[in-house]
């Protein structure tokens, strides 16, 4: 190769170095051999190598393969025919058309002969883009990847598709979360209310109320659909009914880490916009209120975006303080407890190898003293929404005795529903997040395009089209919260796939699924989702995500789902009381 390169020889019949350099004059100045340049860069950059020479036609490849191998006993033509028929058999026309539309009368021929289409998936199990990226030698050869797999790849032990390959490589390129946060500009709102003015506004808006719940979260709950936002929304409603004023605070600069990015906080009073002020004034405001015989109760719904030291300072003289462990941010700034957001880590010791290689490890080591300060100074009552959350949290704080396990709610069973669809329906609920298990749902969808065992439905606010999946827009902002449950029930969903990578402390989706009469499909490492599925007896809990996919692919599983999920009890989710309870002794310690 080197010798040929230096003497300007053409390495193959379809590549002419002179022609390439003529068409791409900038290549010459790189000093790299023309063919190497094309293989390494030019091909992916879409550079021209000359009319009609870009890639060998399929027939030529087959001919070359025939020439390279012994002629089969049945004659020269039989191998060609056999090969084409094999490849054609593997090309799933219906899958392909559903996935990519009908842009040609003869999809198979177009796929085989047009290199632009080789990155596509000709069937659910073969991924051209993945195959070519994993086997650069095939990409160099300019052969249709499916054909290569049939002719040579499978005998060489090559895999048609690496499970999770795209996710793996994508994850490697994810930016460091700390860098991401640092790159966000810190905005200052124009109107920062002084301590005394905040006090006046509060007194005015409280009216005759003499009880104030100071509730702290990560963002504006009235604009979000997440679980914590749902809880705070219900909390505000219960306060309104019971004569409490609900004062909700959230950082002006939300952050995915428990570190401060500015001292300003925004607030909502009984769901309506309240004053923005400096967090350093909070303690003084609370003291002033108490001086006026206002009974205050502080509740921290999460430390994301907050500086725990500052929270500790401001709430140190407020008693009592609740600390709802909705997520694991007090254990690790990566509240889902996943190592580099790629695998569950279970929050091992901060000095472990796992934390050393995790992009959250440094933040964890930095924030840990502040978390301890918060727990020591404020001595909050840690409220766990599930036993699973409690057990996980106490691994890190085994000596913290001031806690209670109080589920956020329960399902009140009210009736039943019948699902009479021919095929079982499996749903994914929520945003398309890899951490929430969307990748697994997409993998199932790909496989199902060919196997056609299930009807797949994706319900959520930000859905987009996925081949073979029915998408249903369900926007719960400003809607009745039972909307998701009723939609799932109305669609006759047999099961909801809830397969997050990270730890779930409660999971409203799991409750919505059960209330709609659906089963839960999950794996063991999902915290309360697995616990709920196990306790309710209405779920399948696989050992791992891989094992879950295997179960779903089992030929007998659709029948199992149809049988189990056709007639199911339904109900509605009922919130527990979220009003402050001052008598700690009334809880189960």
């Amino acid at each position, binding site marked *: 190769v*080197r010798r040929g390169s*230096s003497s300007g020889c053409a390495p193959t019949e379809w590549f002419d170095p002179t022609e390439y350099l003529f068409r791409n004059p900038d290549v*010459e100045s790189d*000093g790299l051999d023309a063919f190497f340049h094309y293989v390494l860069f030019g091909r992916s950059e879409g550079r021209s190598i000359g009319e009609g020479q870009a890639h060998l036609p399929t027939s030529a490849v087959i001919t070359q393969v025939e020439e390279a191998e012994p002629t089969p006993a049945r004659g020269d033509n039989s191998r060609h025919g056999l090969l084409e028929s094999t490849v054609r058999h593997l090309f799933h026309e219906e899958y392909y058309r559903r996935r990519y539309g009908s842009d040609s009368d003869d999809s198979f021929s177009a796929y085989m002969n047009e290199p632009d289409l080789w990155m596509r998936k000709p069937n659910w199990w073969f991924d051209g883009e993945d195959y070519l*990226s*994993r*086997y*650069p030698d095939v990409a160099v050869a300019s052969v249709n990847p499916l054909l290569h797999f049939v002719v040579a790849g499978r*005998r*060489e*032990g*090559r*895999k048609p598709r*690496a*499970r*999770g*390959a795209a*996710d*793996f*490589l994508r*994850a*490697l*390129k*994810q930016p*460091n979360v700390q860098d991401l946060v640092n790159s966000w500009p810190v905005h200052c709102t124009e109107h920062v209310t002084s301590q005394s003015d905040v006090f006046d506004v509060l007194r005015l808006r409280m009216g005759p109320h003499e009880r104030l719940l100071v509730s702290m979260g990560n963002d504006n709950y009235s604009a979000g659909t997440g679980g914590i936002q749902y809880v705070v929304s219900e909390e505000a409603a219960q306060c309104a009914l019971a004569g409490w004023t609900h004062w909700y605070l959230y950082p002006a600069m939300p952050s995915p880490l428990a570190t401060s990015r500015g001292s300003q906080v925004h607030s909502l009073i009984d769901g309506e916009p309240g004053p923005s002020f400096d967090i350093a004034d909070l303690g003084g405001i609370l003291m002033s209120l108490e001086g006026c015989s206002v009974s205050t109760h502080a509740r921290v719904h999460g430390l994301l975006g907050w500086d725990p030291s500052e929270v500790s300072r401001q709430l140190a003289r407020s008693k009592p303080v609740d600390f709802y462990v909705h997520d694991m941010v007090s254990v690790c700034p990566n509240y889902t407890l996943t*190592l*580099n957001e*790629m*695998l569950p*880590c*279970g929050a*091992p*010791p901060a000095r*472990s*190898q*796992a*934390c*050393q*290689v*995790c*992009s959250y490890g440094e933040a964890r080591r930095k924030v840990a003293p502040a978390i301890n300060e918060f727990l020591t100074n404020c001595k909050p009552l840690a409220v766990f929404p599930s036993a699973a959350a409690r057990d996980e949290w106490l691994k890190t704080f085994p000596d913290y005795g001031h806690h209670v396990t109080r589920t956020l709610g329960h399902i009140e069973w009210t009736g039943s529903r019948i699902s009479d669809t021919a095929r079982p329906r499996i749903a994914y609920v929520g945003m398309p997040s890899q951490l929430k298990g969307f990748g697994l749902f997409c993998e199932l969808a790909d496989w199902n395009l060919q196997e056609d065992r299930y009807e797949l439905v994706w319900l959520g606010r930000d859905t987009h089209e996925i081949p073979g999946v029915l998408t249903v827009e369900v926007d719960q902002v400003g809607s009745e919260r039972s909307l998701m449950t009723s939609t799932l029930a109305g669609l006759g969903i047999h099961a909801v796939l809830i397969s997050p990578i990270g730890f779930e402390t409660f999971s409203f989706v799991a409750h919505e699924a059960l209330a709609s009469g659906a089963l839960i499909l999950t794996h063991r490492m999902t915290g309360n989702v697995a616990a709920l599925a196990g306790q309710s007896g209405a779920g399948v809990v696989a050992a791992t995500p891989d094992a879950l996919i295997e179960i779903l692919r089992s030929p007998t599983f659709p029948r199992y789902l149809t049988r189990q999920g056709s007639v199911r009890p339904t109900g509605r989710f009922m919130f527990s009381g979220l009003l402050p309870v001052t008598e700690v002794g009334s809880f189960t310690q």
Partner: protein
Amino acid sequence: MNRIIFTSCNIAYLDRAMVMLDSVRRHDPEVDIGLVLVDRKNASADVGGALRAFDVVFFAEDLAIEDFDRWIFGHTVVEAATAVKGPMAVRLLRDYDKVVYLDPDICLYASLELAWDLLDGRAAVLTPHLLDPEGSLMGILDNELSALRHGIFNLGFLGMSKRNGGEAIATWWAARLLEFCRDDVSSGMFTDQKWMDLAPAIFDGVSIIRDPGYNVASWNINMRRTELAPDGCFRVNGRPLVFWHFTKAIDVGPSVTMKATHANAAVGAIWRDYLERLRRSRESLGADVAWSYGLFSDGTPIPAELKRAYRDSDHMRSAYPHPYRSREGLFAWRGWRDPSVPLGRV
């Protein structure tokens, strides 16, 4: 017992060396760290700050290699950076009891305790590329045959003791490298690696570390099951991970590894961290410069073929004793096209 870990690279690889250095400081904090920099002292990048992070720094030209200019002109960057490992090891064994070489693209995750302990009573320690027989045709083609061509042992890691015969091994190895450190597999040579295949036969006291936690790399990851244990430690075939060799980290390394491990998430997490460390190191160094010994004095790149021809031809070396200043003559010698002259003017 004083100990040192050293590496060898040119300025373009300093980013990796800095990641390696940080990992050694974390896991083997008592050990000195050395560097042999295979670039000119007046190379264009300002890397003084990086060099000060090392305890011992030698430039290749200071290793007392005879007729240095002519010697290094006959080497590609990979050949030169591996060839100087021998003389550097010999030099360091004067001052240190135990010397370990690590490639710059290695990252430690635990102390090299086992290697240090072995060097108490042994002359040298080596890690093989492979510890288990391959089970597939692809594995045989990719890994076993490759090991036969490129060497049984991966010389990204090598430990030598001042005692127990270690100096003799270093001296022999250094002598061979100065003469025959070539990337010429068809002639039975692959830089410094193939030479060490002979060491266990020629010398006493050569230990082979068969711990799967040592030298995990793309060529053996398919046989080294990596997982995260509940205590937060990575286990490789059940053993604690000690160091990983991130070959071709900014090239095909990640995709090759992904292919071999079927997207093992634990492996992905380790790779993601390394790429992040490397990115930070690159940003802080900002020293992505051409190899100064790969350029004529006027900045024209020297083709690898020309370097090899110069190395193999006594006549060329005699005719051009100052090769870096002899661009025109050397190109003319073989009638090669001088890349500094535009095509149209030939």
